[in-house]
């Protein structure tokens, strides 16, 4: 199993790397297109601000490479949001794999959403063995609107897509690497795809 975590300078990559290590898989950190293309599975992480993260992707040309990947790709948090068409954060055009837009939570709720919330309406092998309304750890101020590609839903002032899937592309808004044993199960499921 050759697992590559795309390393473009955005986010807490160590935690993801360690989470896979706990599952017995040593992930490779790389921003090299050849290495990424040669992987069996790819993680597209992201923490921080959308506009600067997108700029870093463009500088390394990864924005063009990512949508052409054929193997399973898992976008996490901002990684998932950048795979969408557009995000209100910094008025940023995304990679556009997922056919939906990302909006800011309204101020009827505290922003960022920070902590454990449930995911339900689970529709994907990614959630095999994960029960409906399982708790996941989330930290975000922007959310993806529902579309045909929604594979998990969460409520926070609004009901939104906490996971998306389009062909070989998967995205989760929550942090499976920080979501206890249920999160580890999802990462294992991704490895098993």
């Amino acid at each position: 199993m050759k697992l590559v975590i795309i390393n473009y300078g955005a986010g807490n990559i160590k935690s993801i790397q360690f989470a896979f290590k706990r599952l017995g898989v040593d992930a490779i950190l790389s921003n090299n297109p050849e290495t990424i293309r040669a992987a069996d599975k790819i993680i597209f992480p992201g923490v921080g601000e959308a506009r600067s993260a997108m700029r870093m992707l463009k500088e390394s040309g990864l924005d063009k490479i990512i949508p052409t990947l054929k193997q399973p790709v898992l976008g996490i948090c901002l990684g998932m949001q950048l795979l969408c068409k557009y995000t209100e954060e910094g008025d940023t055009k995304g990679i556009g794999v997922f056919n939906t837009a990302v909006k800011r939570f309204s101020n009827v709720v505290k922003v960022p959403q920070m902590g454990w919330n449930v995911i339900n309406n689970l529709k994907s092998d990614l959630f095999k063995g994960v029960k409906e309304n399982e708790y996941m750890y989330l930290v975000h101020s922007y959310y993806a609107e529902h579309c045909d590609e929604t594979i998990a839903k969460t409520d926070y002032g609004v009901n939104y897509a906490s996971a998306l899937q389009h062909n070989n592309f998967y995205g989760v808004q929550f942090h499976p690497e920080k979501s206890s044993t249920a999160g580890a199960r999802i990462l294992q499921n991704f490895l098993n795809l």
Partner: protein
Amino acid sequence: MLTKRIIPCLDIKNGRTVKGVNFIDLRDAGDPVELAKQYANQGADELVFLDISATLEGRGTTLDMVLRVAEQVNIPFTVGGGISSVEHVDALLQCGADKVSINSSAVKRPELVNELSNKFGSQCVVVAIDAKQINGQWKVHLAGGSIPTEIDLFEWAKEVETRGAGEILFTSMDHDGTKNGFANEALSKLSETLNIPIIASGGAGSVQHFIDTFEEGKSDAALAASVFHFGEIPVPKLKEALKKNNISVRL
């Protein structure tokens, strides 16, 4: 529904836990990683490590500890204590910390909050505020509560929110160590004035105190140390009790 969080806080000196910790089933109660794993298994939602090392060497060992915690613990954690530069935060995040908390350094140089949230995102910037009441006014205190300032708690909290803090960790020096309950009046005022999550700290002594801070104090999370470390309030029992009182928790 987003749940209320229960956060054990561990004081760290030279890479080891300090204060007595009375945990059974621990090979080494002084090892922060062992303790952290235990808390994660018990259902703690997050952890806070407060570095109280006085020396540079002592602080160096914290980075190594952060790395080991990130390696072995599968819930989020915050590191605080003596953090005053972007470089220091960068190193902690690189080692796998999810958030950092800053306190006195933000009061001395408020721009630090902007710098950190611009560079790393507000989600990882916790501003810790120690305050106590002087003539009926909540005043911010520095250096672990020992140095009073003229700064008003609520104004300061609002300012750090504007500057990009993602969360406030408010410790009432009037309540800390008393085991008489959290400062719920001030906490609920903070929660109503601000639109970022508020962590209550200082005063936990009973299960009822946690219920009160979530209901009356409108807190988003509650932090405590000794009641957890000495097994006075086991985390699973606390969460069961909160659930019975219709407070949303992760079980």
